[in-house]
């Protein structure tokens, strides 16, 4: 089956989420029965930006056989419906039976537009997809931010799928060849450009919650806005940042940008040190990808202890200052 995949570019070339989506697209393309006498299936990528910024060899390493690029002269910047219209136009060029994108804000939005433009269903945050004998796809996808998995049948032509950003690993191919990079001119409708992004630089250059190596988490057990100073100091000593539970943001103790969880940020640190947090599943949805979880909690029966590696049973107001003192002494 031929598959078309939306690729998001960044300073490093291609975003991690898009490499995962390409890996997913490749396994979907090669998973079905090959047409007799046909050459291998097409894994087509489409990216938006200057052609000389499209990293052909990186795309080749992730199994892309044809790369299409829409240059700024044809479509400048992010306009979700125009990007979807471009994908729609590429369906007949690539003969794609499925369109895949990363389950990011951008990928989800563009594929939702494509679903509306084509009148087809879209399966969000997929983990697997494989063709069935009747031409449908058997998919598994995340619900509840990954707390549940839905096994489903996706019956649409083209099949539209976004890929969970935190589960499918990015895997390169063994026999990579650079794909040709073809400049594509999309056929757009004026209404496609009604909504388009003006992009400005982010606010601060500090360590971001999503990518921090160490996150010191604080929950209701911190007790109030003043209780966060020792957590901040500990995070500084560990070269990390503070993350919080929803109770903390809904009380207004800390801004929502620091919230970890289903409706906050998903974190992927080496160490998550969760202090005064009970471990509600919506919170765990945001930190399940942490390499190590260490807990400080007064309650040995708190649910978070059954999802953590190590725990200290005790009052965080006592343990954290003692830990800060010990780390300072060591330095």
């Amino acid at each position, binding site marked *: 089956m031929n598959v078309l995949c939306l690729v998001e570019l960044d300073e490093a070339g291609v975003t991690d989420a898009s490499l995962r989506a390409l890996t997913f697209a490749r396994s979907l393309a090669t998973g079905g029965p090959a047409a007799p006498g046909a050459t291998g299936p097409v894994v087509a990528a489409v990216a938006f930006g200057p052609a000389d910024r499209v990293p052909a060899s990186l795309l080749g390493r992730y199994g892309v056989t044809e790369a299409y690029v829409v240059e700024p002269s044809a479509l400048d910047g992010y306009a979700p419906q125009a990007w979807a219209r471009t994908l729609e136009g590429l369906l007949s060029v690539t003969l794609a039976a499925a369109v895949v994108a990363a389950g990011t804000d951008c990928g989800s939005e563009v594929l939702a537009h494509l679903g509306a433009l084509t009148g087809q269903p879209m399966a969000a945050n997929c983990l697997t997809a494989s063709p069935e004998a009747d031409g449908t796809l058997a998919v598994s996808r995340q619900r509840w931010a990954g707390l549940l998995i839905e096994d489903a049948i996706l019956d649409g032509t083209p099949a539209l799928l976004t890929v969970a950003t935190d589960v499918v690993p990015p895997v390169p191919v063994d026999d990579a060849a650079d794909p040709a990079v073809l400049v594509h001119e999309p056929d757009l409708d004026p209404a496609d450009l009604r909504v388009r992004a003006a992009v400005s630089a982010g606010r601060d250059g500090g360590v971001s919650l999503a990518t921090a190596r160490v996150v010191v988490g604080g929950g209701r057990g911190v007790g109030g806005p003043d209780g966060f100073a020792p957590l901040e100091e500990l995070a500084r000593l560990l070269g990390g940042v503070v993350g919080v539970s929803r109770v903390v943001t*809904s009380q207004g103790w800390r801004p929502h940008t620091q919230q970890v969880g*289903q409706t906050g940020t998903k974190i992927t640190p080496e160490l998550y040190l969760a202090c005064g947090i009970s471990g509600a*599943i919506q919170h765990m949805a945001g930190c399940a990808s942490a390499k190590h979880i260490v807990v400080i909690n007064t309650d040995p029966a708190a649910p978070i202890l059954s999802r953590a*590696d190590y725990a200290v*049973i005790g009052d965080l107001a*006592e343990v954290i200052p003692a830990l800060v003192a010990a780390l300072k002494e060591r330095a």
Partner: protein
Amino acid sequence: MEVAVCVKRVPQVGGRIVVTPDGQDVDTRMSGFAISPHEECAVEEAVQITERLGGTVSVLTLGPAEAADQLRDALALGAHRAVLLEDGGREWGPAGTAAAIVAEVRRRAAEGPGCDLLLLGNEAADTGDYQVGVRVAHGLGWPCATGIKHLEITGDGARARREYRGREETFEFGLPAVITVKEGINLPRYPSLPGRLRAKRAAIEQYQPQWQPEGLRKRALRVPDQPRQQATVLGTGADAVPALVRLLEELGVLK
């Protein structure tokens, strides 16, 4: 300014999520229900907009008869009107949900002042389909922005911002429009006592939209394997600090 907000009733699951024996639903015998968090913020945003610019907030849900509770929660926060689209006991997919919302917006426009702004959550907490708002926008032919965390409504236009990959994206477009928001756009207020009393007495309009089959068909739900086991306890109170420091050293997170 006529603002409509679409909300969804979702289970309030706490420490564990359990699937019913037939694999078709989340077991909600032990849980309460609430408005999905992004939509709670959408209600708050709508109320703030009409507090500034005047007008009314209509809150709309597609759900079972019991979803009237969530409509009353929204009324208690300051919404003025409530509409329940009864789901007839079926699970509705994103295309059918969008079609029912579009029909309701059109019905309203035919009867009186139409809607200037339609707010939804970016994604429902339970199904996480990430598309209802966009499909509604196409159905109405309106512009659409998703994942919005900062919104300014200016007379006949909207300026909507979100953060994406460390940068800020700003979208500007005219009304009427569809905007999906995320938690963090505001801090929802607590309902006042008079608000609660008013919500209790308020009438709720009810309609029965026609269910339609979808191309994405659920076979079963399951809980993913959970790799982590019970935590090893390092110790109690400040006495555990030396063991904790050794652990941090072993994990390689000390500079």
